[in-house]
């Protein structure tokens, strides 16, 4: 059937067929295992595990088989992967165990012999622990592995182990034990086993005789070895290829090539036939015994049958593994090569496998070089040294790689900086600074100077600061002032080192502060993002840096942000008086004073201050004051203030909350028309309506309802809906009914809810109405209500409604009758609603009754019902009730889910009671919540919990335990919050495969976007955003902001555009400023973060820094500086003094005449005044370049004009003082 089968012992026939035949019975065995696994495993998971196992077995077999088919071998990695997969799926079957064990022998030519056996033992033990049951086939497989791996062991011990395990050895066992004895030349031992076989009347096969040939040969007795042939014939068995092969190997081990040749000739004469594979064995024996000189004699006998190459390859690999690489090379060179037709065009390279394995096996450089030379000479490989280097790099063998590069250099082969990257990547991951420096040093000695990419991507990230790194380079004798390093260092600074500068920018540049919340918010955002984007270890590592940063921040933030609430009223008053006396503008301080007074809830004083300084009042002050009056129920002043501010500026709009406060206070004081007018104003002025606004509407309406003001409730509700300020919802409709119930007017309440249903399709508070009607015994109206519900929502809903109403009013008999209505089936949603209501209101008796009454209800999830009950037991800490519930469950034969058991166990444990069952280990993931705080310790703590939860989930998944969708979402969010993208995606996949239609919610999706951005997977982030929008979810604005900012840093204008279009309709509702796109589009043009700095420097008057920066940029971009200048100018169009910018530009142009001329032309076209210094500088530049000067050059020296300007400036500044 398969090569794999062929490679395996044939004694047991086609084992694949046997395996397939075993499938049903393995299922039966599983059932036997399941009970003692954990005790209370439900049937379903076991069945699905079983099913999975069968599938997995086929998959693993195919995987291994295709590997054997293609290459004649299995790699250790593949074997281990399948092994780990098997372990993960839970209960490994016997078949799977057999499959793995059988793969631990000669199918692993790349693995040293002893390691193969160790692997077999490890698999044996682990699978046994996991419940695999071993029979004779497993023991036999293990024996075969021992033999193939030349593993020395005691056959008697092996037998007694089998006996202990109560496994009967069979013929195959004995045959293999004989072979084991014979391999050691122990004829006596072999005879003993032979005795057992005879005793058990087991037939003696050719395999036994072959072993005996080997056995006698290994005692040195070739005569007796030869004699076995006649013994065989006497016993009626004709010696076959196996026996001849045993004899051939025996002579080969003696180095008796003549006998080998004679036997081969003899076989040929007998028209017998040995396969290439057999001859390869003889080669192996020759090599191992130290007679490589005879290998060519055997190689010449090969027939190159199909499958020769994989077999020979495996022999070659095996020989390399065992330190016989020279013979391995001989074997390799014997490969028949296919004549390559297009040899001239692309050279076919042979021997990669050989070189690679030599590298893996740490063969010395000299050997490798020798092989490479030979391959090259024989035209078998075009670039063997490069390939060997590749292997060394891939397997991170740094020393070898560097030595190979030396060799390459000696041979005149080019060395390139990126050859060091695979090594550097490794050190980067390990944070191995010495390793990194070592590679750089070696490269330097090889004459390869690292380029910018090398430093940026693989080196600098390893160092906290560049000075340390430079010092280390210097210490190690590496150049530390190369161009590559300087540019990389600048890049690095721009990316990682400009926290302070960015914050400064956020503060000082008005364009960044235009988003409504202002700069304080922007800094807060930035801080949140910053700390959020750092891992715990980073936070700890950069603690000092952050501390300094915070300190700096404190200095920078205008005092009123930080001291907002602490500003003393008196201090402000003084300030105000002082300003007033000085006839200076007081608007700002006045506002601060009003705000401070409002914070102190000092309405009287605030109003007085306002009256006193009325002409100087600004909108912000009014708004605060209006709000204060509303809070203090001072509707008159509130309205007066509002009118006053509107008189000053009719376009003024208050914010949503202040309008709502007005509506509330007006409603409360019966000024219904005014309240409705405010609602209209909200509409007219297009005040943003948020979810919280709608909640506020409800509270306003509900407050009116509680006061029993029917008209107020109805008219406000109507206005809100007709103005389109909110959509009709059950919640918003509720006050319409509440208002009647509060007045105990149940008929009107019923009318109202019927009316509500007709108008808005909602039926609020029906349950309460029904309960009241039952309590009042108003059967007539009750009938009316039921008819209505029945007609509108169906009989089933009606029955549930009335069932719950009877339950709630303690009319259990009636309730029971209703729920026993024939044909009624469980409605999990309704039952849950009522159960949660009972839990929330602590109605134990009601809940108990519901649980009991629904016992016979069709399709009722009993565990779920008891779970509700236990939930309430836990909340009320009633362990007795909990225990009784447990007993009831047993009585009812309910199989509890794990979560139910845990709930029960918790309640018992909390009350010091013993738990009478095995508590499932899984901790409920819901207990976790997303850490939002930046506190390092707590974050670390949550991180540990999250890792725990993640492991639990993986564990649970193996056992087919499912969690509710919310648990997955919570965990995904938590993982994302910790930046564990891969893990989160894995959980997402699990959830998607387990829960139909599982989607991430808004928050989790947003976090996913943020994390993807952080990982630089921008394309993925965009597609996540797309999915979010497509599924009508609303992303967090932070997610969009992050994405846009990241795109800007990449200069990806196109994607910024795409994202802008995607969120177009959402932008205002989630508070995305248009400036976000404008600013980032500008930044995207520049791409280099250094320009940020430039702007700031110019802004902050740090001329030298700005100039230096420009020089660096222009130096970097010297080929296209004209373009760069243009871009820079595009960036700063609003800069107050263009003259300054231009002069900096000119200064920084160095001797770039072309750019300078462009600049001058641009200035002329824009009518920008060129001062004397500028003209002088330009003139000098042009003259030096031998160009004509197209204007009158200022006559004095350059320094003259510089001094002149300095003087002028001093004069200006002294005037200002």
């Amino acid at each position, binding site marked *: 059937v398969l090569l794999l089968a062929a490679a395996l012992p044939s004694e047991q026939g086609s084992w694949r067929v046997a395996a397939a035949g075993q499938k049903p019975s393995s299922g039966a065995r599983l059932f036997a295992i399941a009970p003692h696994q954990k005790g209370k495993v439900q049937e379903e998971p076991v069945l699905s595990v079983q099913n999975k196992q069968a599938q997995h077995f086929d998959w693993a077999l195919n995987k291994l088989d295709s590997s054997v088919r293609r290459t004649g071998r299995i790699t250790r990695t593949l074997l281990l992967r399948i092994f780990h997969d098997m372990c993960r799926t839970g209960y490994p079957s016997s078949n799977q165990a057999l499959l793995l064990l059988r793969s631990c022998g000669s199918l692993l030519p790349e693995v040293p012999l002893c390691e193969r056996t160790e692997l077999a033992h490890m698999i044996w033990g682990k699978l046994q622990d996991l419940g695999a049951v071993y029979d004779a086939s497993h023991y036999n497989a293990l024996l075969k592995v021992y033999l193939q791996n030349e593993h020395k062991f005691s056959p008697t011990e092996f037998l007694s182990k089998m006996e202990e395990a109560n496994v009967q050895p069979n013929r195959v066992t004995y045959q293999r034990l004989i072979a084991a004895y014979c391999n050691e030349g122990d004829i006596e031992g072999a005879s003993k086993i032979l005795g057992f076989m005879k005793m058990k009347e087991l037939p003696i096969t050719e395999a036994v005789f072959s072993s005996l040939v080997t056995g006698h040969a290994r005692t040195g007795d070739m005569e007796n070895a030869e004699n076995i042939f006649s013994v065989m014939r006497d016993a009626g068995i004709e010696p076959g290829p196996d026996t001849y092969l045993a004899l051939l190997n025996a002579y080969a081990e003696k180095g008796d090539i003549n006998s080998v040749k004679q036997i081969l000739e003899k076989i040929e004469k007998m028209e017998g036939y040995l396969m290439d594979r057999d001859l390869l064995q003889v080669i192996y024996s020759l090599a191992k015994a130290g007679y490589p000189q005879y290998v060519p004699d055997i190689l010449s006998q090969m027939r190159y049958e199909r499958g020769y190459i994989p077999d020979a390859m495996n022999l070659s690999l095996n020989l390399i593994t065992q330190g016989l690489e020279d013979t391995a090379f001989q074997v390799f060179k014997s490969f028949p090569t296919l004549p390559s037709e297009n040899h001239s*065009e*692309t*050279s076919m390279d042979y021997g990669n496998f050989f070189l690679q394995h030599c590298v893996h096996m740490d063969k010395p450089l000299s050997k490798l070089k020798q092989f490479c030379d030979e391959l090259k000479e024989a035209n078998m490989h*075009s*670039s063997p040294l*490069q390939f060997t280097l*590749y292997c060394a*790099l*891939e397997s991170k063998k740094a020393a070898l790689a560097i030595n190979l590069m030396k060799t390459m250099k000696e041979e005149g082969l*080019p060395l*390139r*900086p*990126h*050859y060091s*990257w*695979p*090594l*550097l*990547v*490794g050190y980067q991951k390990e944070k191995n600074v010495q390793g990194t420096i070592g590679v750089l040093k070696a490269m330097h000695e090889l004459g390869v100077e690292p*380029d910018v*990419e090398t430093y940026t*991507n*693989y080196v600098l990230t390893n160092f906290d600061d560049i000075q340390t790194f430079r010092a280390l380079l210097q210490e190690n004798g590496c150049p530390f002032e190369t161009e590559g390093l300087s540019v990389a260092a600048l890049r690095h600074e721009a990316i990682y080192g400009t926290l302070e500068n960015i914050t400064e920018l956020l503060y000082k540049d008005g364009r960044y502060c235009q988003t409504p919340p202002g700069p304080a918010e922007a800094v807060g955002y930035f801080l949140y993002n910053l700390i959020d984007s750092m891992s715990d270890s980073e936070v700890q590592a950069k603690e000092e840096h952050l501390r300094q940063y915070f300190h700096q921040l404190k200095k920078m933030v205008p005092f009123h942000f930080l001291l907002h609430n602490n500003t003393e009223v008196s201090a402000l008053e003084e300030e105000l008086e002082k300003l007033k006396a000085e006839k200076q503008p007081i608007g700002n301080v006045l506002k601060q004073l009003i705000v401070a007074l409002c914070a102190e809830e000092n309405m009287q004083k605030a109003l007085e201050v306002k009256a006193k300084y009325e002409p100087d009042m600004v909108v912000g002050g009014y708004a605060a004051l209006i709000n204060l009056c509303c809070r203090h129920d001072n509707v008159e002043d509130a309205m007066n203030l509002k009118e006053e501010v509107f008189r000053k500026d009719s376009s003024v709009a208050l914010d949503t909350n202040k309008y709502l406060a007005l509506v509330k206070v007006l409603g409360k004081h019966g000024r219904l028309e005014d309240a409705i007018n405010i609602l209209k104003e909200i509409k007219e002025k297009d005040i943003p309506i948020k979810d919280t606004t709608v909640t506020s509407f409800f509270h306003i309406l509900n407050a009116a309802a509680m006061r029993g003001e029917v008209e107020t409730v109805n008219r406000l509700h109507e206005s809100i809906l007709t103005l389109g300020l909110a959509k009709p919802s059950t919640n918003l409709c509720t006050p319409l009914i509440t208002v009647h119930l509060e007045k105990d007017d149940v008929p009107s309440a019923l009318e109202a809810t019927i009316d509500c249903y007709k108008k808005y399709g909602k039926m609020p508070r029906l349950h309460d109405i029904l309960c009241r009607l039952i309590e009042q015994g108003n059967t007539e109206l009750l009938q009316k209500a039921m008819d209505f519900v029945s007609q509108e929502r169906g009989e089933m809903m009606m029955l549930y409604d009335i069932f719950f109403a009877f339950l709630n009013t303690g009319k259990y008999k009636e309730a029971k009758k209703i729920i026993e209505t024939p044909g009624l089936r469980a409605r999990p949603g309704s039952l849950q609603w009522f159960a949660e209501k009972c839990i929330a209101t602590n109605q134990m008796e009601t809940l108990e009754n519901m649980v009991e009454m629904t016992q016979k209800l069709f399709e009722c999830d009993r565990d779920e019902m008891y779970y509700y009950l236990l939930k309430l037991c836990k909340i009320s800490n009633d362990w007795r009730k909990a225990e009784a519930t447990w007993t009831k469950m047993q009585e009812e034969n309910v199989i509890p889910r794990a979560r139910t058991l845990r709930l029960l166990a918790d309640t018992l444990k909390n009350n010091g009671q013993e738990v009478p069952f095995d508590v499932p280990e899984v901790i409920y993931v819901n207990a976790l919540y997303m850490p939002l705080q930046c506190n390092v310790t707590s974050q670390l703590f949550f991180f540990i919990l999250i890792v725990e939860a993640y492991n639990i989930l993986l564990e649970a998944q193996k056992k087919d335990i499912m969690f509710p969708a919310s648990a997955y979402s919570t965990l995904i969010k938590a993982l994302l919050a910790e930046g564990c993208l891969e893990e989160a995606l894995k959980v997402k996949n699990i959830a998607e495969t387990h829960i139909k239609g599982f989607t991430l919610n808004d928050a989790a999706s947003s976090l996913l976007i943020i994390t993807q951005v952080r990982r*630089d997977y*921008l*394309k993925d982030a965009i597609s996540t955003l797309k999915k979010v929008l497509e599924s009508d979810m609303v992303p967090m604005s932070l997610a969009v902001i992050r994405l846009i900012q990241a795109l800007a840093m*990449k200069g*990806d*204008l*196109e*994607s910024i555009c795409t994202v802008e279009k995607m969120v177009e309709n959402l932008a205002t509702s989630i508070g995305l400023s248009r400036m976000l796109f404008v600013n980032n*589009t*500008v930044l995207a*043009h520049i791409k280099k973060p250094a320009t940020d700095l430039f702007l700031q420097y110019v802004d902050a008057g740090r001329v030298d820094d700005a100039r230096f920066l420009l020089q660096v940029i222009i130096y970097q*971009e010297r*080929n*296209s500086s004209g373009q760069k200048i*243009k*871009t820079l100018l*595009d960036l700063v169009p609003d800069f107050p003094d263009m003259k300054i910018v231009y002069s900096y530009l000119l200064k920084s142009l160095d001797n770039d005449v072309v750019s300078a001329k462009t600049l001058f032309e641009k200035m002329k076209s824009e009518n920008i005044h060129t001062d004397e210094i500028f003209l002088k500088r330009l003139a000098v530049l042009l003259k030096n370049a031998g160009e004509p000067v197209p204007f009158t050059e200022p006559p004095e020296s350059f320094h003259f004009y510089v001094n002149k300007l300095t003087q002028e400036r001093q004069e200006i500044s002294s005037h200002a003082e």
Partner: protein
Amino acid sequence: MAATRGSSRRVFELFVSQIHWTLATKELRDYFAQFGTVRKCTLPFDKETGFHKGFCWIGFSSEEGLRNALQKESHILDGIKLQVQQQKRRSFRSQYTNEGETDMS
């Protein structure tokens, strides 16, 4: 800003695959420069392994460069044949723009 969006930003791109590991951006750029001005050479590197992924995009600043390169029957660099084709789907490459790009435009 608007000006930079004009035709001058159009790039004429080649998709090159089967690139030997010994070659990096510089070698490719130098090689393709014989056909026209190479505006960009994007050779994504795998940050896990430190090796590139075996393919890259070469952007010429003119259509002529692109045509010249495509006219050459086979491209052999360091003795190894490169697979060269015209880049058609632009969206395909954007996912790699962040890696190992050297864009001097």
